[in-house]
């Protein structure tokens, strides 16, 4: 993330989280934090405990965030915010915490009005972070959607629906149908699809990690040929496994119930792209 992106992300985050922007210049901005954001970014649990115990008026902090360290504000102290800054890491964490679950309805194009009632198609979308771990690590973001009525699975679901206008209120003359799948069934289907995907991936990385693991184990057998230092050998063995053993960890980023009109039109349009 370059500084421009850091700034635009920060601004969007603050605005969306109900923090007011007190002043804004090209190189910095000052913001009055909301209570929620103060808790997420400033890490002062004792203050908040005190405020809640004593039931006093909470005073969330004002932050001045600087995006260009060569042009800091002259009238107040600012804090340089860059990609590696601890505060920005907290901000990224907070953004993820605040956007976990949605339920949204597709909006009609502007000016489009229909009095004919129409049903929505419900899709469940799960966004995962897949981490491949051994002594090194990489991540991949995966988005899978499932049609709650037919059970059809769609990979790259989030990019497909990204440009659609969404609203969180059910529009007039629209209704939802009871889906064929329960939530748990749908989740199970998606997990199954994901596991299949993962098992069919290139696994050279894991094989190489196992080779390293086995090689170092063989060194141990050279170093500890007899049973005299079993405990030490065992500890080293545990450490080697800890260091190398290949595995995949899947965590959820967020999940959403998306209600689409004309599902198949949108989906097939995307497939042609």
């Amino acid at each position, binding site marked *: 993330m370059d500084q421009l992106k850091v700034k635009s*992300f920060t601004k*969007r985050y603050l605005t*969306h989280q109900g923090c007011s922007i007190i002043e804004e210049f090209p190189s910095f901005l000052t913001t009055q934090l909301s209570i929620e954001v103060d808790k997420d970014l400033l890490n002062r649990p004792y203050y908040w405990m005190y405020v809640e115990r004593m039931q006093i008026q909470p005073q969330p902090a004002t932050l001045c965030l600087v995006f260009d360290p060569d042009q800091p504000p002259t009238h107040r102290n600012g804090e340089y915010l*860059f*990609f*590696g*800054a*601890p505060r920005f890491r907290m*901000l*990224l*964490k907070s*953004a*993820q*915490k605040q*956007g*976990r*679950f*949605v*339920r949204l309805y597709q909006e009609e194009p502007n000016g489009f009005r229909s009095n004919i009632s129409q049903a929505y198609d419900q899709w469940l979308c799960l*966004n995962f*972070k897949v*981490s*491949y771990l051994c002594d*090194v*690590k*990489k991540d991949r*973001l995966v988005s899978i959607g499932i049609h709650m009525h037919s059970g059809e699975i769609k990979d790259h679901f*989030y990019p497909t629906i990204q440009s659609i206008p969404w*609203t*969180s209120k059910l529009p007039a003359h629209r209704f939802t149908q009871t889906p064929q799948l329960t*939530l*748990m069934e749908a989740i199970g289907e998606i*997990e199954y699809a994901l*596991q299949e995907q*993962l*098992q069919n991936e290139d*696994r050279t990385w*894991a094989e190489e990690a196992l080779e*390293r693991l086995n090689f*170092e184990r063989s*060194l*141990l*057998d*050279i*170093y*500890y040929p007899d049973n005299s230092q079993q405990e030490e050998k065992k*500890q*080293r063995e545990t*450490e080697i496994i*800890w*260091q*190398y053993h290949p*595995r*995949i960890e*899947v965590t*959820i*980023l*967020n*999940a959403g*119930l998306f209600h689409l009109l004309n599902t198949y039109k949108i989906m097939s349009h995307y497939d042609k792209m």
Partner: protein
Amino acid sequence: MKSIPIRMDRTWISELQNRVEQDTLWSSWEAFQLAIEAAEAESIPSFDSLVCLKQLYGFEPLPHQIEVAKKVIHQMRGRAILADEVGLGKTIEAGLVLKEYLLRGLVKNALILVPSSLVLQWTRELSQKFQIPAMAQKKEWMWDKYDFLVASIDTAKREPHRAHILNKHYDMIIVDEAHKLKNRKTQNWQFINQVKKKYLLLLTATPVQNEMSELFNLVTLLKPGQLGKQNDFKQEYVAGKRLAKNEEQLRKEVHRVLIRNKRRDGDIHLTKRMVKTIPITLSAPERALYNGISQFIRTRYHQEKDLKNMLSLLVLQKEVCSSRDAVFHTLFKLFQQHEKNSQYLSPEVAHLTHLLKQVTSSSKVKTAIQLIQELSPEKVVLFTEYRATQEMIVRELAQVGIYAVPFRGGFKRNKKDWMMELFKMRAQVLVATEAGGEGINLQFCHHMINFDMPWNPMKVEQRIGRIHRFGQKEDVRIYNFATMDTIEEHIIWLLHEKIQLFETVIGELETILVKVEKKHSFEQSVMEMMLQSENDTEIRQRMKQWSDDFQDAKALVTAEMKQQDVLLNGSIKS
């Protein structure tokens, strides 16, 4: 291979179910998008990049340091000996490795074990350069409270601390000055061997000092078996002490776990240093004060004949070469202690006070002003040992319209930063009393005045190191102020002419000094030379003797280093 184990996080499912059932607490579309963008920014799409480089601010690692970090992670798999020569930035290299693992989530806790004198420096370095929330371990309860601790190895290996550490699993252990782990019979070695750890970095500039078996012991901490078994090792590789038999093979094995950069390796180089001694003639009153103080010290010495008690007077001798203001403070304190019971000043003290009053201006300051004006608008850092001198200089410079800011160790962090900022953006001169310690990197300035000379070569080298470092683009100019016919002139002659301290990078200065300073520190030796010599010729003779000892020690250290390279690399690359 069979299937790869997959762990699925399912703790979130009930949260989603609750929301569906109770129809509350839904996030907005914008928040959903922000969350995904944040996750994209945090995720690391490849095994073999160094993502930490994009997250640093305020300093740029050097190419050889980046290479080391890559090699440690991708070839040595996080267990390595970092054996760069002194001053090439082993701390930075270790910091890069730690930061990279941290960002990838492979390290969640780490313990850094260092000599107690380096605990604070490491803590600062990790938090300032790498934004790693490292704490200096001070109390027992801290072991379980903080994830990133810097601790003295001597404390850590003793109870009750030892038990805390052995109870935990550390994703990473870093040991600085790891040559202290050479002997497997020591508590140090056994302690590190016992700690449960995933990654391990051992930092030392001298992995082999005496015996090849030392190397065996270090490598065993990282990867037992890499060099075979202890007995096989002796048979296969070690013919005699310091001589490896099966050299080529051993070297190959060692280089799988050890990285060593040397100063003379191509891409590591510094700009030139130009040194100028500026002779300064004392004014008549200054001369009288100098003579008065020197005489006073001599008399005391001949009365007591005890060098240890003389150390407090030594300060006075040094100060009189710096400024009247510096002398005044010490003189005042000294007499407060010794003569607080008497109503009147003793005649000799009264005499010194009288001499002090006669000095109304400083010849050194005049010279400094002239030099700084000539150099204007270029920036100058001026070092003095004494706070009183520092205050006087800032005052005097201000009077002639030169903007100077002070800097000293006692300043709070914020104030230090602020002063550095002022110097960088506005002031022409930084008047500093402290060369050691962090937060004073002056690559943007290339003129340095030694207003007075520390009687400690290490301090001198630290001063130079502040501006003559990686990142300095200009040749560095050093001006040494030498008051003629004083002890200062002799010292500068010794440091400059006899041991070439200012011109050459003596990377192993500390190691050499340890060998030379066996009996007395340099400071004490100089004092001794001064007090016991009848005249200047004799002082010079004794100083020459000292410098001969220094050169011998230097030759010895150089030979050891070469020996090391022969062992590690097979030949001496020149």
